[in-house]
């Protein structure tokens, strides 16, 4: 499978293994196509998880990771891509319906927008909250004081 993909996409992707787990690092431009191919041709029909990691020091600040699983092959794979802050990704809701909330959570926590998502809004934090808490520059004690004061009528939630 890897060889086939490699043949098709060449230098845009790189297949790696760590601790016995396969993952591939894919160029942002190839993401829509590769996810499509994995779902439709390689039978990765179950989108386990979508998440992101923030590396503020890098130029391409975010790793976005799709964890996929194939029932037919009993195999798990991770697809990883790097994007800069403010860049958007194509939504994979048309591919896996279950990606809906997972993408919303990534948006909520990291501020990464997904194009074509049916309902791109915050999910865990309230609407109108400022900041994306899982970014590394968001302190652990930090909160949107203004929101708390207006909506909850208390000085601070802490």
């Amino acid at each position: 499978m890897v060889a086939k993909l490699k043949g098709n996409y060449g230098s845009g992707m790189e297949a790696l293994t760590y601790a016995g787990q396969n993952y591939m690092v894919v160029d942002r431009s190839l993401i829509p196509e590769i996810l499509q191919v994995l779902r439709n041709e390689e039978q990765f029909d179950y989108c386990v998880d979508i998440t992101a990691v923030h590396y503020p020091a890098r130029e391409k600040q975010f790793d976005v990771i799709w964890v996929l699983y194939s029932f037919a092959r009993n195999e798990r794979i991770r697809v990883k891509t790097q994007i800069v802050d403010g860049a958007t990704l194509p939504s994979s809701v048309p591919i896996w319906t279950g990606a809906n909330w997972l993408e919303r959570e990534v948006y909520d926590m990291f501020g990464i927008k997904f194009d074509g998502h049916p309902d791109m809004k915050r999910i865990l934090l309230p609407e109108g909250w400022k900041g994306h808490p899982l970014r590394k520059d968001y302190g652990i004690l930090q909160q949107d004081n203004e929101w708390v004061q207006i909506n909850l009528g208390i000085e601070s939630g802490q």
Partner: protein
Amino acid sequence: MTDPNSSLSHLDLETPEKPFLDANELVINMGPQHPATHGVLRVILRLDGEKVLGLECVIGYLHRGVEKIGEHRTYTMFNPYVDRMDYVAAVSNGLGYCETVEKLLNVEAPPRAQHVRVILTELNRIASHQLWLGTHALDIGAITPLFYTFRDREEILKIYEKYCGARLTTHAFRIGGLQYETYTGFEKEVKNFLTFFRPKIDEYEELLTTNRIWVERTKNVGIISAADCIAFGVTGPVLRASGVKWDLRKAQPYANYKNFEFDIPIGENGDTYDRYLVRMAEMRQSVRIIEQAVNALPEGPIMAKVPKVMKPPAGEVYHSIEAPKGELGYFIVSDGSTQPYRVRVRPPSFVNLQALDVMCRGQLVADVIAVIGTLDIVLGEVDR
């Protein structure tokens, strides 16, 4: 590859069916304080009379930022935090986390520790299913099973209390094995529990399985097809009740589940009744696993060699286990320091809850309650 069985084509929210009598559709806010939403789930229902046209879940009322906390604690310090996610199945959460970090550290817990882990985790599965059964039956209006299940769950909690001092958020496992050796009489008490508990499952089933009203309330309610389950990423008993024979304990065995014999119970129709039957059968299977594990409990060390200060090599690992609610995954990124660079939890309840809308569409208000109950969500895990 679009599945023709999938019902997702009905999913366009924009064109609801034309309501009867031109009565305005009713929008009802269920929760966050509502007796049947199992915590602080808020569901906004759009109703036509009693028929559900669509619904939207509003979650996050219990968000505590567990993932953020994980980035600011060392690997050992974060271990108790994961218990607070799915607080009715804390042991499973701990197992998943410990195994993931062990993968990063490239260590493996010794066999005795593995066995004890399996025993405690399966006991926890039973406890979690008992709590589900009680509350689910209560939602449907049968108040009595709740007290029976809680009476029996107490026996499990007593074993936990004796083992590690806590009943709910147990923090039972450590990275690399166990901290405590089992107490004297542990094996005997577990065996006693098994003999005590077997007839109790029959008792629950006697109360409900053939109860006419129960069958009427659960059969053909909240049907979800296997294709839909997979599309939504729904796992656990819900997926199995739709007829997919998939259990991580068999598919990708972790701990030492490969040493034990057990079956994966599956349903046919993917309705609430099948999910009920699957969970009941799972309790019996858990009893089987525990029995094998406790009979073959090996002697030996309970802790692998792990450094006092854990500094896993830089890298990232995704590992998942079959929690009582479905696939519970941990994705941990290490940068070589004492603290994880990023901890991501893949909560089964969160993903399963997405399917609520498609399961409830076209059903009645009373069915929404039944479906919320049958999804077996824990809001602590949904919101983290």
